[in-house]
């Protein structure tokens, strides 16, 4: 999902770090709030706050908490952490934009495991009914959730068909292919009068051989040796 965020914050989202409350900004909600570390890095890179804020992430009294938190953090639209909240809020924002005849768009990123939550399917019914074509759902489909694979825990397949059946314009992409991500998020809406759902097939821990597809790294932080190894595999030299 780091690749998805990188593309979003590198030209897709119309946002202005100098005016985080700019009324015409695109809204982005990270509904999978547990993945906030990646969001915070993207926001810092984009200039919403200094890189130094990242240093004490998750520590006592820090600015940045372990789930996406809007309080005191410019650029975080909505605090999340309990799953299944982002899409309904995004529907409300998209509806407000429609009713106000405003042109900004609302993007929301969900996890696959999060799609177990019924509230998402309430919202999935709602958005096409109200023709919210200013709404884009991006699903980080890495096929792993808290206690096992999605297939084992609560299978979502046929996943794209479900969204299509609810009335969404669905695109399936390789969530690590920058070209595909850009293409999917550039010509929006994918179909007139329909909300867009981009199912991004991803690999958890992409690019680090000992992390890829491993449930363990949903929970663990790397020690310094693992960190060095991971950075080297990713080609990060600093």
């Amino acid at each position: 999902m780091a690749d998805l965020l990188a593309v979003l914050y590198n030209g897709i989202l119309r946002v202005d770090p100098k005016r985080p409350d700019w009324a015409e900004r695109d809204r982005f909600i990270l509904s999978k709030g547990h993945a906030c570390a990646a969001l915070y890095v993207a926001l810092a890179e984009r200039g919403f706050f200094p890189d130094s804020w990242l240093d004490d992430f998750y520590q006592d009294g820090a600015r940045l908490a372990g789930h996406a938190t809007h309080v005191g953090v410019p650029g975080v639209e909505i605090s999340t952490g309990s799953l299944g909240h982002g899409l309904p809020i995004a529907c409300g924002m998209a509806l407000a934009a429609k009713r106000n005849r405003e042109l900004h768009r609302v993007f929301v990123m969900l996890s696959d495991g999060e799609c177990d939550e019924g509230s998402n399917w309430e919202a999935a019914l709602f958005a096409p009914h109200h023709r919210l074509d200013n709404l884009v759902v991006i699903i980080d489909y890495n096929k792993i959730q808290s206690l096992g694979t999605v297939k084992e825990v609560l299978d979502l397949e046929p996943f794209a068909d479900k969204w299509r059946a609810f009335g969404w314009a669905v695109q399936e992409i390789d969530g690590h292919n920058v070209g595909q991500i850009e293409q999917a998020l550039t010509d929006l809406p994918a179909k007139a009068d329909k909300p867009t759902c981009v199912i991004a097939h991803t690999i958890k821990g992409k690019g680090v051989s000992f992390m890829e597809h491993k449930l363990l790294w949903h929970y663990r932080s790397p020690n310094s040796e693992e960190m060095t190894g991971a950075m080297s595999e990713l080609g990060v030299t600093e």
Partner: protein
Amino acid sequence: MKLAERDSRVFLVVGDLGFGVTEPFAQRFPERYLNAGVAEQNMTGIAAGLALSGKIVFTYSIANFPILRCLEQIRNDVCYHHANVKVVAVGGGFAYGALGATHHATEDLAIMRALPEMSVVAPGDPEEAAAATEAVAAHDGPCYLRLGRAGEQKVHDRPIHFQLGKAIQVRQGGDVTLISTGGMLQTAVETADALSHKGLQVRVLSMHTLKPLDAGAVLTAACETSAIFTLEEHSIIGGLGSAVAETLAESADHEVVFKRFALPSAFACKPGSQEYLRTHFGLGVESLSDAIYAASHARRLFAAGASL
């Protein structure tokens, strides 16, 4: 309707309930009306999204549906973001008594009181309800508005000055105080009348706002009268009685007798009209006035004994 005519930010979101009530608004303000369907979690998330886009949003459903099904959406999406959402529940207490315990909203005040940022309002009669609607709309932030069902009797016989967080004194009296919230106001007034026939001068306070509580009115009553009784159509846990008890317990400047009249923490095992269920649980005028008279009589005997 009047609110929406005055303020273009007012937006009504309903959970597919309100037959015969919501149509005029929907027809007059189609751009500011939404039926979210039978989906309260989504309804509340949408309300937060609308409010964070500048609307003053009223969510509307009956009994427990707009609060318990979507409690976490109210906590996280509305309260945490200080979203300007007013959660309106029609049918507080036993208003839908005959529909069975699923439709008895008897823990709502306790649960809503516990949420940060949330103001909790339960008006006592139609006049208070109209004023409360204006007041919550004017208040910047989350509010819970507990209403009865249309058709309650008007209690106030003169114009009221309604202010969030300020109790309204409905009857003057120096012997004992009855504090009621929500639709128990009518019962409180009738109980006060019954007690006055027995020689007790009864003060009646309508505590339409449970949070923030008017602690000043409670403490004044504790100093000026010898007993305080709370009346609510709500569980004994966490509602008006608890809020008043918390205030009294932390203030040492009084020797007031205190008793809560509320519902046991139990499901009503029989259906019945509001009146039937109130009486069943000891919230009828007759049993209340007997119990209050006995408690305050004991107090007077005690006081007389102490002064000898």
